[in-house]
């Protein structure tokens, strides 16, 4: 199941970056992938829709958000955390 979340998040990021999923490395940052602030907001929307979760993210203070966007791996982990948290409650 964990793999499938990872694959689906990577697919969303890859689509936004106009890359093949195989070219999205786990240690890449959004900047490495050429995703700007609008692309980020759109990716978060796609993640919320795909997993039916709510992602707490304010573009004005990304560092204060519980949603870590520092790398692809961090985003995958954050999404996994939110899914566990929001389906448990």
């Amino acid at each position: 199941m964990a793999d499938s979340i990872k694959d689906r998040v990577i697919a969303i990021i890859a689509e936004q970056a106009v890359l093949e999923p195989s070219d999205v490395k786990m240690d890449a940052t959004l900047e490495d992938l050429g995703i700007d602030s609008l692309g980020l907001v759109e990716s978060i929307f796609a993640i919320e829709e795909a997993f039916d979760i709510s992602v707490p993210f304010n573009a004005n203070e990304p560092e204060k958000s519980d949603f870590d966007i520092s790398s692809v791996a961090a985003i995958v982990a954050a999404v996994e955390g939110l899914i566990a948290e929001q389906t448990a409650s």
Partner: protein
Amino acid sequence: MKRVVITGQGTINALGSNVAETWEAMREGRCGIGPLELRDVERLAIQIGGQVRGYDPDAVFNRQQIVLYDRFTQFTLLSAREAIAQAGLTFVGDLAARTGVVLGNSGGGMNTLDENYRSVYEDGKNRVHPFVVPKLMNNAAASHVSMEFNLKGPTFTVSTACASSNHAMGQAFQLIRCGMAEVMITGGSESMLCFGGVKAWEGLRVMSKDACRPFSANRNGMVQGEGAAVFVFEEYEHAKKRGADIIAEVIGFAMTSDAADIVMPSKQGAARTIVGAMRDAKVNPDEVGYINAHGTGTAANDKTECAAVADALGHHANDLMISSTKSMHGHLIGGTGAVELLACTMALREGVIAPTIGYEEPDPECALDVVPNVARDAEVDVVLSNAFAFGGLNAVLALRKV
């Protein structure tokens, strides 16, 4: 070129239902932002706004008017009535033909759209009221002002998102300046505080859930407002001849496009517009005493705007005052420049600089005198009003004390 002066002003916004109340609130640094009261608010992630409260449309408009006037039109008419009453003008004959209306607005009749979409999509109704179209169209407010006051000159609506009102007032200024009109009713309005209007803004993730704190290091986004402000712009000799009370002179205007990004602001674009307005007004940077900032309270705008002001005004940027009254009345989107021009006329006329409230922590990237939290008494001769819109469209006005 003709000179242009302001001889009337009116408003309704979260701070008050007229200019006197609004000026008093600005002087006291009062916050008009609070919990939103609207249908389905519990389904919104953002639940605060600068709403016009204690307003009963049935007390001021009759049934036949209300079926035609969306909330943004109502706000506009109330503001126009106050402004035109102050100016003391009656529009007949040649003056009526040489007076027009240019208003800024972004969303049009958003409440009308919201209510009628709800009715057909959610409630499954197959009929809507026959006046939905004339009620929601963006030019409805301008047309109703024209009809109520018999204004038969150039009349239209300008829609450039958050710069709409500044662009509108810039057009009104140019029309009188070049002799195409004697008097122009100008300003703008917005009424986007309905479920769909707030929900759309939520999507961008730039809204604050608690407060608008422009220039403060802990700012976390913008807060929407609603309302209108309307001004009477008049050719100087015309105003002088009839002994009108002149509130201020409009001396310059500039507008530019960044041609860069649909949402991110540009320091170069903003600076170019500020310089353009000063050049058009024939003033030097050191004459500018106050700038009403665009100051949305987003991370991106405020630091970009401060850098642009520093670029455009050089070392004088450190000596002038700059404040964002959005901290008090919220961001009125297409109407915001109009309400903010009231802070400019207050500075020139009353010698009071409206504060930036909610200011808690200095931000080294916004290291200007932002008049934190408390209004200040100061004599200023020249002021600027900034508007930098989504779409990269910039419009800056310059005013002088008379």
